[in-house]
């Protein structure tokens, strides 16, 4: 029984990984979801709703850098079709789109050395966050 469950789990995991590799839409959603949950934590700290933790701030920046690295490859030609809010403007302005990822990566990297305590977090983090809206403004459809 235990073995059957294990096998089933392994198969499920395998399918999941396979999906991510073959399905750029699913893969980029995962990356963005990770950003979203890291950002949720960061915003709580920015507002003072949750206590500041340096490692959480740095983890959020790490998540953004990760997204900036993986991002461009996750939007191959033709992946505007399917369950996605990616706008065709991405492929019409590929260079600019990728420059947005590069800026996100560079800003996050700079912030991860500049942020050392709560004061520097509150001063520096919001400008990193501007990258999210700046890119979604141009390249993502409004959702319901």
């Amino acid at each position, binding site marked *: 029984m235990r073995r059957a469950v294990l096998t089933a789990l392994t198969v499920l995991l395998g399918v999941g990984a396979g999906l991510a590799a073959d399905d750029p839409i699913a893969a980029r959603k995962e990356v963005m979801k990770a950003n979203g949950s890291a950002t949720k934590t960061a915003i709580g700290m920015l507002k003072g709703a949750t206590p500041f933790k340096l490692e959480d701030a740095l983890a959020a920046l790490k998540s953004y850098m990760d997204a900036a690295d993986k991002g461009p490859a996750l939007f191959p030609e033709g992946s505007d079709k399917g369950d996605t*809010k990616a706008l065709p403007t991405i492929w019409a302005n590929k260079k600019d789109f990728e420059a947005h990822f590069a800026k996100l990566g560079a800003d996050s990297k700079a912030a991860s050395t500049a942020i050392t305590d709560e004061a520097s977090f509150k001063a520096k983090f919001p400008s990193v966050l501007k990258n999210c809206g700046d890119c979604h403004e141009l390249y993502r459809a*409004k959702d319901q």
Partner: protein
Amino acid sequence: MKALLALLAVALLGAGAFWLVTAPGALDPEIARAMAAPGDAGKGEMVFWAGGCSSCHARPDAPTELGGGAALKTPFGVIYAPNISPEGLAHWTPQDFAHAIYDGVDDEGAHLFPAFPYASYRHMSVVDVRDLWAFLRTLPAVKGEAPAPEFGFPFNIRRLVGGWKWLYLPHVAPSQTAVGDVDYGRYLVEGPGHCGECHTPRDPLGGPIADKALTGAPMPDGKGKSPNITPAGLAKWSQDDIETALTLGFKPDGDSLGGAMAEVVRNLGHLPRGDVAAIARYLKSGG
């Protein structure tokens, strides 16, 4: 013969009624008088950001250079935001400006297409409009003229806009709402903020459906849908969540606002925090 004459009479009456209904009216004389007094450009700057003028009339990287030119896609065709810098409106009087804001009529007495949100702006107080005009006059003069709208027949007939106004323009006396009033949030939402222009669904003629105000709608440019921002739609959002979204640009789940809302967040960033709180309070409570 008699029947024919009767038919002709009806047709003439119909044409006459159409002509009357669709004729651009004159500016309310009281507003015209009020506009003659000098405005406060400093206060006008706040109206400018609340009104989101830059979103259409300027590029994101130079929000106070109002040279226009941005293409606005609508279901009826493409319209280009005009130059409203002191150069573009060089010959406009304060009264011309008020006529555009309240009645959607330009300096030559022609109808403006309602892509310019005068159906919302007409809720604004005369003091705010006067201050806004004073502020606009302090901005840099930018050269250039926007291309003519690319509307197909029959939407290219400006006179028809008169019919649209007759059907849809809300009958409101210019608001007397002032900063700090309980109703100030509603004023910002319905007037300068013109939230309903994207968040209220429209009928096939492009008229807002009043009893579905702010319940969310397809974006005019076709890029997705705007969400329901009525108290029911925001049931899971606290007032603080709404303020965070409007100031930092993030939803409670950590996702950022995108599309046209990114620009709105940039604009609202110039307003006093209390104004944003008033907007959030109104959206959350509905009144």
